[in-house]
């Protein structure tokens, strides 16, 4: 169970960091952002893929930290990036596990 605790802690820590960071960046009142932030998307993809598919506690923890960082941004930011990251991570997961599934 220890690894799950670590994942959760890193995820929560990442979210908090992301929240702090994005409030530093954007202080204005609420806006629903429509444009796609590529760097954050990359971070998100790396994070989710590492988190789900690495199979190593430390790498997964780092992955969840990154994923949490993007997901935890202030409302209106980082939604699409998170979604893209999650979808790609799931696809990668399925591809990796396919030999096992068949």
């Amino acid at each position, binding site marked *: 169970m220890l690894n799950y*605790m670590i994942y959760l802690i890193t995820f929560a820590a990442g979210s908090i960091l992301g929240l702090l960071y994005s409030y530093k960046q954007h202080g204005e009142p609420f806006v629903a952002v429509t444009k796609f932030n590529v760097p954050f998307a990359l971070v998100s993809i790396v994070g989710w893929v590492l988190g789900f598919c690495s199979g190593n506690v430390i790498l997964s923890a780092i992955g969840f930290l990154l994923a949490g960082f993007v997901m935890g941004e202030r409302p209106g930011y980082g939604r699409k990036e998170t979604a893209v990251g999650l979808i790609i991570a799931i696809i990668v997961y399925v591809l990796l596990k396919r030999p096992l599934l068949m």
Partner: protein
Amino acid sequence: MAEILIQVIIAFLAGSLLLGLHRKVMARVQKRPGPPIVQQLIHSLKFFFKETAFPKTVSKVFYIGIVFILALIWVVGVIVGPVAKDSLLILFGVYAVYKIVEHNSGSSSGSPYGKLSCVRAVLSAATELPLFAAIVFVYLVTGTMNIGEIITYQSVHGPLIYSIPLAALMFFMLIITKSPYSPFAITKDKVLISGFETEHFGFLRGFMLFSEAIAWYVLLWVFLTIFFGPLNAVGYLIGMIVISFVTGFINATTPLLSPNHSVMTQITIGAICFAGTALMIFTGVVA
């Protein structure tokens, strides 16, 4: 010991995040942006560092003692549930104590809002009955009260949700009742400010939020465990997120019922489900 600590931390973190998700879902349904998911967790942590004040009118021993009991009770819940996989009846006892604590934290402050919340906590003793009935039916089908043995039974015969769906519905109603902003949450009606929590400030409130998060996690865990068979971590994660979503939708779209209507609605649904399940068991639909 370490196992208990780890499970408690998991319960707290996961519970807080799920409650945050629940809030987010409700906000999106109501076309509001809503707070970040992690907000609930930050709130709970924040309260531990705030100044604590004690109202002049309180019954001090109870007022302070109750929050520790509240936290302790749900730690016991974690021990009985995810850690030891012990008897369901003890979990039920834990739930009963939780009701008491809720009741007493309302009345010990002397505030009229807390008082009203306390009276309503007594009214809503009705939610126990469906929970019982659900536990009894689980027992009748599996022949055991031990959570570990129930899991083993399900790995052989398939998840219980297929055999006694109405009992699962009863249990689900309890989860709805305990979710924030639910139509049955008469103790936390906004008319009563924050209900029984109104007069608890500072680290006392921190403990309350802490135990609320654990409570939500444990309830979801028990529901998933006894009705959806042996699950792995991903299964639990998906299940909990889905249930938080569903309850969020339900709570966002339903109004709060008046106290006695809420109680009677619960009891009526419970009675219908009870009769249905009893019929299914005794006519032999369920093996």
